[in-house]
């Protein structure tokens, strides 16, 4: 055990050193912070104590030990140094909106207010040629340093011409390739940028795919429709602290945010275990806050931290509002999780609505193996997908 401790401690100390070196580099190489973060905290009535508390929470959220708290604080102070180029493709701007509505009054919120958006079409004052100039200048001045955030899927159909942008009418595909080629890190924000999202739902009329696939780069995938802003802030902080992407799962999602299953942390979980289900909307069970599995909740197949973080300053989340989870952090959920008001006829857990009352018991026993179950589930979906692709090829 002692050896193990020593090993862990050595490992983290090394990581801490790396982090310090990186932060020195950020402070040396990147432009001065555009805003005085401490002054802003003060102006918004956030005490030093609450700020330190926040660093504690964020450090834990990033799955780092407490010795990293001062590093998180330092990263926050350097937040507005990092230039961000934000591109909109086939999207609905819901992800931008979600980020703009981050919780308040809270440190995340102030961080996002100070974010150095060099290019963001929804917010920038300039338009047309002047907007294009902003993009070109930012790409030149901050080459190799900026973070590219991509919102929306990229249509490949019609040679990418389902989306044309800018005074020269460049396709989304061409523009994306140009911008990510000089980025230090690319973040795919939201379901559409991650895997294609709503426009890529069957039959995918415009041949939309996620940014990573379309542009041929590795991205950090902040999944969700829309995603939670804390997951976005954490990813940027991680970039400032380590100069790299956070550890990710097979879907490119940061493990610290998407490593746990919604079902396992759901406030209605005890009712599931007790076999207490909402049978139809607005019934007695619904009034008592019982489990939504039978009315289609996809929490058991969904990896996300919604039950912990909730949305809009911890105000609520879909399950709290009495509607099941639709699995919006999972690849292909518009097809794989439909219909949204019915449970999946799930072969992996002995499926069929007949046996639902028993599933609670079976799954309870299997909770510890949740990740493995997810693996199985993913494999099944992949198999389905392969079959679909085969069919598609046959048709063609």
């Amino acid at each position, binding site marked *: 055990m002692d050896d193990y401790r020593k090993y862990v401690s050595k490992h983290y100390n090394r990581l801490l050193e790396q982090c310090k070196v990186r932060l020195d580099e950020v402070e040396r190489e990147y432009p001065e912070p555009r805003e005085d973060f401490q002054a802003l905290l003060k102006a918004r009535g956030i005490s030093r104590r609450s700020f330190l508390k926040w660093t504690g929470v964020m450090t834990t959220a990033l799955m780092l030990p407490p010795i990293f708290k001062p590093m998180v604080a330092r990263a926050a102070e350097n937040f507005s140094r990092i230039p961000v180029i934000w591109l909109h493709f086939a999207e609905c701007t819901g992800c931008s909106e979600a980020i703009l*509505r981050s919780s308040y009054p809270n440190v995340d919120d102030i961080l996002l207010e100070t974010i150095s958006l060099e290019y963001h079409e929804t917010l920038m004052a300039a338009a047309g040629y002047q907007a294009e*100039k902003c993009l070109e200048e930012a790409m030149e001045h901050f080459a190799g340093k900026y973070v590219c955030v991509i919102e929306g899927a990229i249509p490949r*159909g*019609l040679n990418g011409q*389902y989306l044309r942008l800018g005074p020269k009418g460049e396709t989304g595909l061409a523009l994306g390739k140009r911008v990510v080629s000089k980025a230090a890190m690319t973040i795919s924000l939201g379901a559409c940028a991650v895997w294609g999202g709503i426009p890529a739902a069957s039959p995918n009329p415009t041949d939309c795919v996620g940014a990573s696939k379309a542009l041929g780069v590795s991205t950090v995938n902040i999944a969700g*429709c829309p995603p939670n802003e804390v997951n976005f802030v954490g990813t940027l902080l991680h970039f400032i602290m380590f100069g790299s992407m956070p550890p990710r799962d097979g879907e490119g999602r940061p493990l610290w945010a998407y490593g746990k299953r919604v079902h396992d942390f759901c406030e209605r979980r005890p009712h599931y275990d007790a076999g207490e289900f909402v049978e139809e909307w607005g019934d007695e069970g619904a009034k008592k806050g019982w489990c939504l599995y039978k009315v289609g909740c996809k929490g058991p197949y969904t990896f996300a931290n919604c039950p912990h973080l909730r949305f809009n300053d911890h105000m609520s989340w879909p399950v709290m*509002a009495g509607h099941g989870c639709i699995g919006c952090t999972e690849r292909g959920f518009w097809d794989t999780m439909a*219909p949204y*008001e019915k449970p999946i006829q799930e072969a992996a857990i002995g499926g069929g609505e007949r046996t639902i009352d028993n599933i609670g018991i079976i799954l309870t026993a299997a909770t510890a193996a949740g990740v493995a179950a997810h693996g199985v589930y993913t494999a099944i979906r992949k198999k389905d997908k392969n079959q679909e692709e085969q069919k598609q090829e046959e048709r063609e």
Partner: protein
Amino acid sequence: MTKRMIIDPVTRIEGHLRIEVELDNNNTVKDAWSSITLWRGIETILKGRDPRDAGLIVQRFCGVCTYVHYEASIMACEDAFGIKPPPNARLIRNLTQGIWYLGDHIMHFYHLHGLDWVDIVSALKANPKAAEELARSIHPNPWNCSASHYKAVQERLTRFVKSGRLGPFANAYWGNPSYKLPPEANLVIVSHYLDALQISKVAAQAQAIFGGKNPHPQHLVVGGVTCVLDMLTPSRLGEFLFRAKEVKDFVERAYIPDVLLAARYYKDEGLAGIGGGVKNYLCVGGFPLNDDMSSFLFPKGVVKNRDLSKVWPLDEKLITEEVTHSWYEGKEPQHPYSGTTVPKYTGLSKDGYLKGEEKYSWCKAPRYAGEPCEVGPLARMVVGYAAGDKKIKSLVDETLKVTGLPAKVLFSTLGRTAARAIETKLVADQIEPWLNELVKNIKSGDTRTWTYCEVPKEGQGRGMTEPPRGALSHWIKIKNYQIENYQAVVPSTWNCSPRDKNGKRGPYEESLIGTKLAKADQPLEILRTIHSFDPCMACAVHIIEPSGDVHEFKVC
């Protein structure tokens, strides 16, 4: 000698919009074309799905107009299923829609539209004390108003400018002579620009109390709402009301006074009718006040040729769409129920311009009785005013009296922006009465939130509502318990419409004619007018009747 100017991307909107204008020697707009440059085809995706799932999918038309497509789709299904939601569900829908009206309009005025009126750099020159006096001359108790606060805002901006990294404010049109506000007025509104970032979050939180989250709430189902637990928890209703009051307070003490302030300095543009556009206004009825949907907060009807003495009843059969200038195949105007669409992308000209004489947009051209119509806040206020609606008439008259301007000022860019502020106040005043009605209903023992329903084997229905950006209707056809056909005619399609076969321009295009640019290379005045419509392209571009074979879309 005319010259062509491209504005792409049009920023501070939702989605992807290109505007091209032809300028004469005096830099006055002689002709204009508006084009949507993205197509996603969501209605194609809906085909063959469970009708009850449509709401969650169509909500992703747009994350800015979040919720509204969800509601319209659910209403279309309820019409097709032949059921009515219980009163509690109607009230919760009005509350979630209403609170978002406040959040959305505030966000639009400050964050999307504000920089067309306000020169941030000029605010640095303001005298904070004089700014305080100016603010107090408009309202007795303005929001967050003190010389020291204004000074702090100025210092923050100065630091920002000195850093040399203006971010979203870079390369803009600061110092353009078309900015008319004195430095003090600029400072007051800029300070509210920052405050509004917080306030729209409060509105979003309030919506999330019933909706679970914002954007993209998740609490509606065909037949009612799911948030029965929140509805029955008094503290949740209290949290909602507390936030609604805070937002209403901001509307009354910041938003309305700021619009009045802008009107003081931009009234000449308003009186000259700059940005007026087409002369017909259409409203499909918003915020049902009773359960048989016969009375609305925003009355439905059509006003033709700006004649405020008459309201024409809305005849749905007269709504058509055509594609002469849209990237789809087809010639004749068609009613949404019988429309066909086969994409036919013909691209840009060799020089990279829109082919204005041919097809040039993914947006279709909706018409009412063959005429283009404006929809949105101005249309709602004009129709309500002409219909003699007491609440609307008194608010509009009062505003005109305060500003000392005649009614014709409404038909302009300024009028459109003012109408949005007026209706925000109208909705803000309704939130508490609706919540009280809900509480009264629950107290009387009615806790129903859902009406039992099943998907019919066959059926069709439509849902009509008035989201912040204007008239919205969704049509659904069901066959074999599945969606056979789905169509949505949305506000931005009406307003962003390209020309029709008779060459009649759409509202955006028409509103730009005669606009003079103070500086030939700075499209500030054009952006001001386009933004006054609150464009939302993602909503407009899904417009497609999914009867064409999917494979035909893959032209590549």
